[in-house]
């Protein structure tokens, strides 16, 4: 089947089998390999991307459902030149080790702080508890996201810091 949608600011059209997940479509058809698949059954959150502004698990959604949708992946919230304030906070707080779960966590955090730039640490912890990280024990992740709030507060209203 043919499906057309926007990814990271560009329009794409892909031919996929109906059973192709959005995660597989992004990774294999569009070669956007920053989105990772950790469990393929919706628990770990590694594959989280934004669809029409909402963080979703790309392993639990089919590519053919994406007609006319607007998708943002880790590549879409990254710059060539410098880390974004959220990414820099992750680096500063050592909020990643192996880095496999990190794109999904960054997208989840980005979606959260875009909507709620004043989210409390408890709120951050609650939201991030939908993403599994096996390396860090989460404590530095919560610290990093809390640290990044200032950048989102300064730019409240705009899409990305």
């Amino acid at each position: 089947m043919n499906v057309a949608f926007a990814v990271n600011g560009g329009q794409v059209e892909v031919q996929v089998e109906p059973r192709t997940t959005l995660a597989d479509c992004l990774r294999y058809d569009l070669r956007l390999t920053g989105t990772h698949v950790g469990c393929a059954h919706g628990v770990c959150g590694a594959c989280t991307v934004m669809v029409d502004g909402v963080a979703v698990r790309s392993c639990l959604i089919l590519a053919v459902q994406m007609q006319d949708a607007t998708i943002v992946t880790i590549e879409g919230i990254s710059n060539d030149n410098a880390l974004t304030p959220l990414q820099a906070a992750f680096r500063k707080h050592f909020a990643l080790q192996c880095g496999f779960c990190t794109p999904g966590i960054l997208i989840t955090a980005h979606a959260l702080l875009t909507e709620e730039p004043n989210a409390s640490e408890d709120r951050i912890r609650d939201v991030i508890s939908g993403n599994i990280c096996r390396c860090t024990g989460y404590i530095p992740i919560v610290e990093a996201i809390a640290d990044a709030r200032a950048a989102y507060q300064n730019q409240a209203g705009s899409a990305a810091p």
Partner: protein
Amino acid sequence: MKSVNAYVGQPIERVEDLRLLRGRGQFVDDLHFDGMLHATILRSSVPHGRLLRVDTTAATALAGVVTVVTAAEVGNPVPTIPLRLAPMAGLIPYEQPVIATGKVRYVGEPIAVVIAESAAIAEDALELITLEIEALPPCVDTRTAAANRSLLFEEMGTNLAATYTAVLGDAASAFVAATTDEFRVCRERFDTQRHTATTMETRGLIGVWDDKTQHLTVYGAAKVPFASRGILARQIGLPESSIDLIEGDVGGGFGMRGEFYPEDFLIPFAARHVNRPVKWIEDRREHLLACNHAREFDCDLELLCKRDGTILAIRGQINGNIGAYIRANATIAPRNVALCLSGPYRIPNIYIESTMLVTNKTPTGTYRGPGRFEGDFFRERLFDIAAKDLGIDPVVFRRHNLLTKDELPSKLPVLTPVPQQEELDCGDYLQTLDRCLAEFDWSGKVKLNGRLIDGRYHGIGIGCFIEGGAVGPRENARMVVEGDGSVSVYVGSAIVGQGLETVCAQIAADALEMPMEQIRIFHGSTTYVQEGFGSFASRSTVMGGSAIIATAEKLKETIRTAAALCLNCAAEDIVLEPGLAISPDGNAVRWPDLAPEHLQAAGTFSSTRRTYGYGAHAAHVSVDPGTGRVEVLDYVAVGDVGRIVNPMTLKGQIVGAIVQGLGSTFLEHLVYDQEGQLLTGSFADYLLPTASDYPNIRVYDQEEYPSSNNPLGAKGAGEGGIVPVGGVIANAIASALGVQPRSLPMSPSRVWELINC
């Protein structure tokens, strides 16, 4: 510049992060090759049976399927997976064939590999393979296995693959002599549950066969690529020089990833068989069935003490449920659980038998702190029970029996049948205990024990541990001066997601006295150095880092010698600055201009002496008696790791290890039914810690006792955080409830049973 160069010891931000944070990592499933095919694996759904027939006709006929590989295609005899370390002839018959032949022995055992144009087609084809398996009675626990009524390997006549014995002094005589009532014997039975590392990236491999050059390249290597290359070369009948194993970014290891698995033969074999690149990416259910399991031990122990709390002896038997085969590192946990049972304590007489029993479950291997997590749970629980029995405060009991700094080095028991004599190197175990108690406010919190506050019972627990690191025999490095004056550093250590690139760059920059930005680290792939030993047993920083220091000295010598020729002075008069060699009269030459070819040097660090980090952990928990739910209100970890290279990556290792340990203590359990079927095949059933579970963790690292066994002074530190967690938490629950937990995990239902049954 050079005098102020001190990267080691600084919380340097990680070089890895720039790519990982932007989705630019290169994990194995991110790689693509033209003409690449996809493999899926048909695995046994029968835990124990005779494999009578495999019919792949319909699967092979499916459009898009290229071929199906079974034992018949692999050839006769089917290669088996050897033990990587400390081999034992008696274990060879229990090795796993790379594909099932004759019998299946666990649910998840590979029977056939489908190679197809897409992963989806390959999965479709799995359903078209028909099997005929004559089921046999399964053994799922050590008791059933030990009864030998159903044998996994009939020709062996027993399910007992091996028994290790750890001996120090004369435990039997100590027990015989202890007849009066000035002695007490504490007898207990404990067990720890089967669980595993569960990395966020599942395993995956890509095999690429170049028919022209007869060269095989395998992507997706980790941990021990050189050892794995050697195994593959022997199995597949190629010289090692015709095989390269390539390590990219690795989504977590923790002892599980990178050991030789059946797929590490099957995928390269398939690529050569069809002469096209073949990719295999494990799915999560498959991962929970197929990757090495760990931690399933039970024990009967006796502790002999004097009335004053002096420990005289420990003896007993520990049984390891090692699953259906002896895999590449299956013996590590059964050895460690015996060898390190005494931990940092003075126990003059030890006699421990540690058995390895084969069962119809997934084969086992190492998981972070192998054998030590289990042994610490047994020992620290036993100590609290014994102290209570003696009427001695648990802290006083530990303080009385900890080895003092003047007693170090101190020998660990002698292990047989593969003799191994190790000793605890240096440290002050009492100091870390005291600091832990102080940071935790033990004396302030001890009055909470057993108190019911707002419907929750409160309790505190303590435990001490050691962590063995720096396993030899050696590690290699190579340095190359690049055209722009930067230095490329190639190390035999492997990364598994622990920030090793940064740590190695810090060490190299200090050793070469140049900015870290001018150092590039290459690691883990067999193309980089002649020989490497890898990343296990908390060895990468110590062994790889020490190899880098040795190599840097050689490179500087090489540069000085070349510069002396060029600048007409003596080599020892050359002063090195970053990228420059300067003669006494002030003439300078750039390093890259010193030779037409790149200047380079290779170095090795050898050591047979292990390092032992150590420390103490304390926890404060509350227990809801209505539900059995335990909350960790405070968790304090104090550890001495020798020289600290990067305090932030170290802290990250320790916090992460503690949370993994809390998962081991409360949540993680690979549950099998009595028929040998795995019941926890997804993350909906196999629970891992999440962000809201354990937010209250405080870590204090110190470097009071650098190791004298290596030039860095470092001790391994990747595993210690996990080791004491089970015992510490169970001790806190015991203090809260006045009950004696003897089994992990401490799930709500288990805790509720302790309260109510």
